[in-house]
């Protein structure tokens, strides 16, 4: 009896929903085009999905601790433009510039985190402001359109891979980086830091009274988000080169992905693995649209409807809270 209930509970649990959804979307893709699951095309899909998955991991840390990060799209764009301008095609500059990018990503995350925690500005506003600042500042710096170019070695991570692998063809570096980031994130959530982050998002007061440095943990979450945007920037820049529109609107896509993964806005609930799966669902959905030859203009509408439906489904058990007080005597 309990076993049946357990199974039911697990299948309808928001975290599990995303994996069911993933299977469904992939089944749809398979039905349209069985060739999609051949090694090379699957690898290509994962290579292209990797940046969003990595961003989802970064965003997860911020959301699970009870905040938002709307600045990641602008940060990805900024990082690619910074890379192009500073490297300017010189191979020798690749590594130093990457270090600069990492520092910049950390810096942006730190500023987001400190403004949110120390100045008590809601993260929605902090990161919205940061979005505007980054968008404007990077264009001020480059005169409106990206200048310079990326070096070949910079592009290796997003574009190349281990070649001539049997069956799979190429194993993209991006996939390996995604797996590494994913594994790192899962492990990080199992560390003391991860548990504290989760507790802080769930019950800030209980965490603080247990001695947790809630503000520090939340700030680190923003830094991790900044780092994930940096990695995503390196991958996207590597994958496709520089263009003026890189990163536009990514923040909304990635928050959607994380929420689709069953992570609750407001914090304390959801797993990082599911958040990353949410990103895969989104990418797979785009692929499915493409396979179905759904008119390009109609896709946002279908995407919007699916998101609302998925979140409403996940939220259905949380609605209608019993208006009475606690069920325990006092």
């Amino acid at each position: 009896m309990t076993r049946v209930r357990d199974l039911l509970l697990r299948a309808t649990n928001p975290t599990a929903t995303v994996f069911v959804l993933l299977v469904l979307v992939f089944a749809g893709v398979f039905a349209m085009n069985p060739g999609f699951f051949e090694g090379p095309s699957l690898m290509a899909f994962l290579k292209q999905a990797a940046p969003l998955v990595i961003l989802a991991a970064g965003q997860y840390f911020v959301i699970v601790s009870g905040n938002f990060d709307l600045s990641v799209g602008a940060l990805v764009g900024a990082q690619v433009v910074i890379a192009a301008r500073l490297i300017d095609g010189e191979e020798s500059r690749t590594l130093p510039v990457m270090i600069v990018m990492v520092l910049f990503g950390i810096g942006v995350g730190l500023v987001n985190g400190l403004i949110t925690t120390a100045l008590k500005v809601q993260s929605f506003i902090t990161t919205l402001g940061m979005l505007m600042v980054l968008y404007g500042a990077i264009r001020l710096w480059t005169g409106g359109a990206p200048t310079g170019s990326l070096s070949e070695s910079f592009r290796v991570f997003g574009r190349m891979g281990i070649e001539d692998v049997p069956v799979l063809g190429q194993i993209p570096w991006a996939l390996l980086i995604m797996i590494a980031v994913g594994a790192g994130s899962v492990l990080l959530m199992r560390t003391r830091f991860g548990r504290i982050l989760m507790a802080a998002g769930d019950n800030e007061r209980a965490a603080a009274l247990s001695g947790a440095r809630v503000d520090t943990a939340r700030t680190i979450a923003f830094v991790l988000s900044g780092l994930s945007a940096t990695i995503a920037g390196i991958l996207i820049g590597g994958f496709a080169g520089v263009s003026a529109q890189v990163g536009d609107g990514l923040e909304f896509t990635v928050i959607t992905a994380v929420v689709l993964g069953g992570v609750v806005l407001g914090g304390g609930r959801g797993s990082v693995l599911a958040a990353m799966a949410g990103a895969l669902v989104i990418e797979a959905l785009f692929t499915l649209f493409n396979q179905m030859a759904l008119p390009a203009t109609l896709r946002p509408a279908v995407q919007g409807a699916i998101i609302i439906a998925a979140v409403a489904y996940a939220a259905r058990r949380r609605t209608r809270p019993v208006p009475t007080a606690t069920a325990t005597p006092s």
Partner: protein
Amino acid sequence: MTQRLHKPRLGTTALIYLALAGVLAAGGIAVAVDGGNLFATANLVDMLTRTSLTGFLAIGMTLVILCRSLDLSVGYTAALSSLVAATTMDGQVANVPLAIGAVLLVSGLIGAFNGAVTAYLGVNPFITTLGTGLIIKGYLDTQYKGPAGDVPVMFQQFGYTRIGPVPVSTVVMLAVAAAAIWFLRSTRTGHHMYAVGGDVDVARMSGIRTGRTLLAAHVLCGMTAGVAGLLLASRFGTGSATAYTSLYELDAIAAVVLGGTLLLGGKGGVAGTVAGVAILAVLDTVFNVLQIDPFAKDVLRGVVIIAAVAIYARRQLDRTARRPRFAEGRAS
């Protein structure tokens, strides 16, 4: 018993109008140093004109934010409304009332959808309205390949006519703002919005139908977005599907929080929002007059918004302290 009623809320609102005066003064000086005059009629007209569009959107946004909700779909609603208006009017003056009715109906329904999904399905408003925005975008992109419809010259006056230096659209915006202030003060539904945003449990325990109140706020927010769409149509002379690319929703949210309304709901008001809108408009005009790089404007806006909210947050902190039994100095 004849004390002024909103005296308690005057504090923050006064601060914002003070800030507006400060921005005007600083802008005036900067422009004067540059050899211009910020308060020349042309510049005043420009400032006032810039308030109307964001103004309409921000008024509705204030209502939903007061209820601790959010609407990220207003830009899309406005774009759709501009098309509904222009295609319904189709160049005929006789169709204007019908078009206004159609716009308010469509935009109200969009708001009702947002409100219902948020209030009754328990979906976070961020997700609801983001999704609604995408749905409208999909419809617009599929249905309209560009500007469509034709707004009769008579209705274009809404966007272009002025009374003295004051554009009609600004007058209407201020009238809607006044109506919203009155609505929040004098109708039960409006008044209950503060309660729903302040503490939904207290509101429920006081017999307020919280779901309906939230729904009403979203409907009104949709309708002000509809009015913004009417203004767009009157200024464009046609309906524009791509108007959503300007991210008006973020401007509106920025104006609302700049105006002192708490993003977490329950505190603030439309008077502050109008000042927030005005501050953004003054900044725009000053930047234009000073020929400052458009990208510098984005940077400064971001900084201004964060700084303003940080200041409000600081003021908010003092309020939460418990009352002391042994105040320092009084005790032995």
